[in-house]
């Protein structure tokens, strides 16, 4: 018999009145995986997480975590999951330590060993010097690390994180991911929703979500292979003007501004390169072209282009 997946959804739907927040979501995440759910704001990531953690009922479909139905999750099942909501969900008037102790007691961590576990988590998140500071007075990064610590206090088997590094400084972000990798080594399943594609690259598998639908779901490497044809990176002195010019020559949104450079998606990169050169040179724009390996962002852009 195959091992029960850590997370499994089948035809998961969530409607808010007329609006479909999540549609036909089928996921299967084996135990021990680091899974990233990627999408822009309003893609349905938070709604998905809320259904996965059992705090919101789906309109239709099934959601199982560790084999248990999350719609009717009992105490035992809930004590095996950890959840960190997108909004800071801790008590701002309680200190770092008081927040941790509260969650430890709610999770029935025995008195003996509780404070040792809290010390360990504080150390892990480099929060030890701030243990007596009210949570509301922490910086953004420290707040998120405290949120993570509270979600981890009971050593959950499955951890759900909703945009945990939103508005977090790069150093804290690195700390954060170090902790997540540590959890993977312990066999914890981690499900993280994020809007950052560079974070998605760090995940074992990634689901790309758009307007409530899962567009693609695979390892970052396989996802990037899904980009049809090739990606050309174009460097010109006036990228904004170049986009306008090229959009005429390459219709269908295959030219996208990436920072100060342009990405051109093409089924036949060779033909596209010469066409782009001639169009831009006619406008008097110099251009340097090189093929680049596609990123997840390229995939997302090319997938969105195919959306109605």
């Amino acid at each position, binding site marked *: 018999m195959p091992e029960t997946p850590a997370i499994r959804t089948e035809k998961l739907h969530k409607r808010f009145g007329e609006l479909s927040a999540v549609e036909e979501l089928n996921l299967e995440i084996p135990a021990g995986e680091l899974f990233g759910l990627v999408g822009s704001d309003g893609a349905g990531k938070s709604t998905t997480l809320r259904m996965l953690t059992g705090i919101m009922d789906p309109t239709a479909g099934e959601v199982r975590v560790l084999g248990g139905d999350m719609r009717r999750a009992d105490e035992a099942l809930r004590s095996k999951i950890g*959840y*960190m909501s997108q*909004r800071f969900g801790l008590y*701002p008037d309680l200190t770092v330590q008081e927040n941790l102790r509260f969650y430890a*007691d709610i999770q029935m961590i025995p008195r003996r060993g509780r404070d040792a576990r809290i010390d360990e988590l504080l150390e892990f998140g480099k929060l030890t010097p701030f243990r007596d500071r009210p949570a509301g007075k922490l910086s953004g990064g420290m707040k998120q690390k405290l949120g993570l610590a509270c979600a981890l206090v009971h050593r959950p088997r499955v951890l*759900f994180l909703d945009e945990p590094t939103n508005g977090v400084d790069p150093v804290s972000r690195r700390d954060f991911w170090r902790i997540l990798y540590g959890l993977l080594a312990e066999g914890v399943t981690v499900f993280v929703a994020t809007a950052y594609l560079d974070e998605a690259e760090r995940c074992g598998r990634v689901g790309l979500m758009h307007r409530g639908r899962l567009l693609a779901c695979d390892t970052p490497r396989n996802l990037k292979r899904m980009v049809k044809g090739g990606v050309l990176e174009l460097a010109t002195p006036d990228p904004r003007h170049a986009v306008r010019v090229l959009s005429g020559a390459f219709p269908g949104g295959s030219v996208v501004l990436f920072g100060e450079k342009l990405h051109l998606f093409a089924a036949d990169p060779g033909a596209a390169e010469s066409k782009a050169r001639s169009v831009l040179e006619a406008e008097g724009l110099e251009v340097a072209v090189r093929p680049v390996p596609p990123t997840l962002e390229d995939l997302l852009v090319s997938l969105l282009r195919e959306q109605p």
Partner: protein
Amino acid sequence: MKLKRVRAIAHKEFLHVLRDWRSLGIGIAIPVLMLFLFGYALTLDVDRVPLVVWDQSATPQSRTLVDAFNASRYFTMLPAVADYREVERAIASRRAEIALVIPVDFAGKVAAGRGAAVQAILDGSDSNVASFALGYAEEVVGGYSQKVTVELTRRLGLPAVSGALLKVEPRVWFNTDMESRNYIFPGLIAIVMMVIAALLTSLTFAREWEVGTMEQLIATPVTGGELILGKLIPYFAIGMFDLVLSVLVAEFVFRIPMRGELWLVFASSSIFMVGALSLGMLISIVTKSQFLASQIALVATMLPAFLLSGFVFPIANMPYPIQVFTHIITARYFVVLLRGIYLKGLGLGHLYGETLFLAAFAVLILALSHVKFKKKIV
């Protein structure tokens, strides 16, 4: 139901209260303020009514009557006046609440044993004081009239009549001096308990939903029952603290007689407290908004407790439909309980009905809260 979790929630909630001056203010400052404000200001006794006299008769007979008013503790005599304009001015400016005009022919009629009239002019804009003043004036005049009658019959050599033929001999029980404060204060304790209890808890659940901590909390194994009970405990403690405060103020500041047993006050208050706290909690659970919850809690507790509990306004005087409605106002029963214990020294034998109702209400509201609280985001 895990005790450890209930304790953790109660502890956390205690910390919230201790660190939030608003909660402390509602929990302690408002009750103290209400007790003193109402304790001193809310008295229905009408005492020392300012009286102005225009004695047109100016005879020994009329002076005896004026002296009788002077001797009464219900009146304070203002300097005498000598015409209607001054009477009018005194009443209009509210210097006097009542004016007494003794007509020129007063002495003659009294001496002749014919009926004599004196005029009382009252300020009807304060009808409560006016009716009390009139009652007191009639009493004084009645006493004088009786004395005159007795004298007259003796002078005429008729068989002595000792006073009036029919007379009510009043014996006031429980509050012998009919001090309105004695009657108001136990009720006031009930009002204070009701208002602060519902206000305090009306914030708890709504705050967690608003701040976003509820989303985090409902993902844990904590149950609705544990949350409700855990949140009840600290506010119950505050309520009991306020009760101790109230009892002390009643005893040492206002000297309210305590004829019953103190433990009964605490026992019945505990039951009432649980009901009132749960009501606030239910409002908080249903509205999920601190502002809305506190407004509803105020309207749902303060107004009915104040107006419909019989605390000041007698229920028997209300229109019938409103009288029926007062039966669902818990404060009504608690007011009866506290007055019964304080003034009448009643025991459970007389008060079990009210106690049972309060207990039933508490259980009902707790159960409703439990049903209404969903560990889900909708």
